[in-house]
C-alpha cells in the first residue's frame, strides 16, 4: 500500500513537471491520471523493497550518481581516442563476470552502469547463475580472461548499499 502511494506521488510529480506552469486545472487532471496509472501498473513494480526503511540509501544513491558521471565522461574520452586513432587500437572479446547482486532493479542498474563505463558493454545477464556477460573493447595481454573488472567491483559495492 505504501508503495502504491509513493508511486502515485511520483507519477503526479512527473505530470506536473511535464505541464510546467502549475495551475489548478492541471493539478486536478494530474490527480486523476496518477490514480489511474497507479491502478493499472502497480503490480509491475512489486519488488518488495520498502523505499522508506533505510534513509541512508539515498545518500549512497547520490554518491553512485557522482561516480557514474565521472566514469561516463572517461568512457567517452576513451571511445573518442580509439575512433580517431588511425590504427584502431581494439582487441575486442566477451568475458563473463560473477556478481553477488540478487534483486532485479540492482542488476538493471549494474548492467546500465557497465554499459556506460569505459570499454565495456553488457550483453546478457544470467540471473540463476549470477553471471554477467560483458563485451570489452580492449583486452590486455597479461590479464587473465576471467579477471574481475575494477569498475564492476566498485559499482557493485555501492549498489549493494543502495538496493539491498
Amino acid at each position, binding site marked *: 500500500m505504501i508503495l502504491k502511494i509513493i508511486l502515485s506521488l511520483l507519477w503526479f510529480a*512527473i505530470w506536473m*513537471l*511535464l505541464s*510546467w*506552469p502549475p495551475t489548478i486545472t492541471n493539478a486536478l487532471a494530474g490527480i486523476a491520471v496518477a490514480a489511474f496509472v497507479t491502478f493499472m501498473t502497480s503490480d509491475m513494480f512489486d519488488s518488495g523493497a520498502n523505499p522508506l526503511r533505510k534513509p541512508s540509501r539515498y545518500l549512497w544513491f547520490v554518491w553512485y550518481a557522482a561516480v557514474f558521471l565521472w566514469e*561516463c*565522461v572517461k*568512457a*567517452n574520452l576513451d*571511445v*573518442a581516442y*580509439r*575512433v*580517431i586513432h588511425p590504427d*584502431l587500437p*581494439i*582487441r*575486442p*572479446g*566477451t*568475458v*563473463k563476470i560473477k556478481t553477488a547482486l540478487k534483486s532485479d532493479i540492482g542488476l*538493471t542498474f549494474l*548492467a*546500465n552502469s557497465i*554499459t*556506460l563505463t569505459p*570499454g*565495456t*558493454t*553488457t*550483453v*546478457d545477464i544470467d540471473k540463476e547463475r549470477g553471471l554477467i*556477460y560483458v*563485451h570489452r*573493447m580492449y*583486452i590486455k595481454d597479461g590479464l587473465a*580472461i*576471467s579477471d574481475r573488472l575494477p569498475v564492476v567491483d566498485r559499482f557493485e559495492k555501492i549498489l549493494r548499499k543502495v538496493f539491498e
Partner: protein
Amino acid sequence: MIEHIGYALILVGLFFDFFGCLGIIRLPDVYNRLQASAKCITLGTCGILFGLFLIKGFTATGIKALLCLLFIILTAPVSAHALARGAYRSGVKPCPETVVDEYGEDIKNIK
C-alpha cells in the same frame, strides 16, 4: 554567465555526438559499434539537453529538457543491451580481431 556554460555544454555534446557517428562508421563489427553508439550518443545528447536547461532555466522548455535527459539516460543502455543480445542470438559473428568469445561458446553449449 550561466548561459555561457550552457552553450559550452552544447558544444561538448555536439563533439561527442560526432565521435559516436564516426565510431559507427570506422569500427569493424556490430558489438564495437554498439559500444561507440551507446556511450557517445548518450552523453552527447544529454550534454545538449542539460545545456538547454541551463540556458532556459525553470521554464516549460527547461523542465521538459531535464525530464527528457532522465529518460534517455535510463533507456539508451537498455536498448543497447537488447540489441547486443538480439545480434548474438540471431547469429552475427564477431569480427576476426576478437580475442576471446565466452558468450558465443556458452550459447552454443546451451543450445
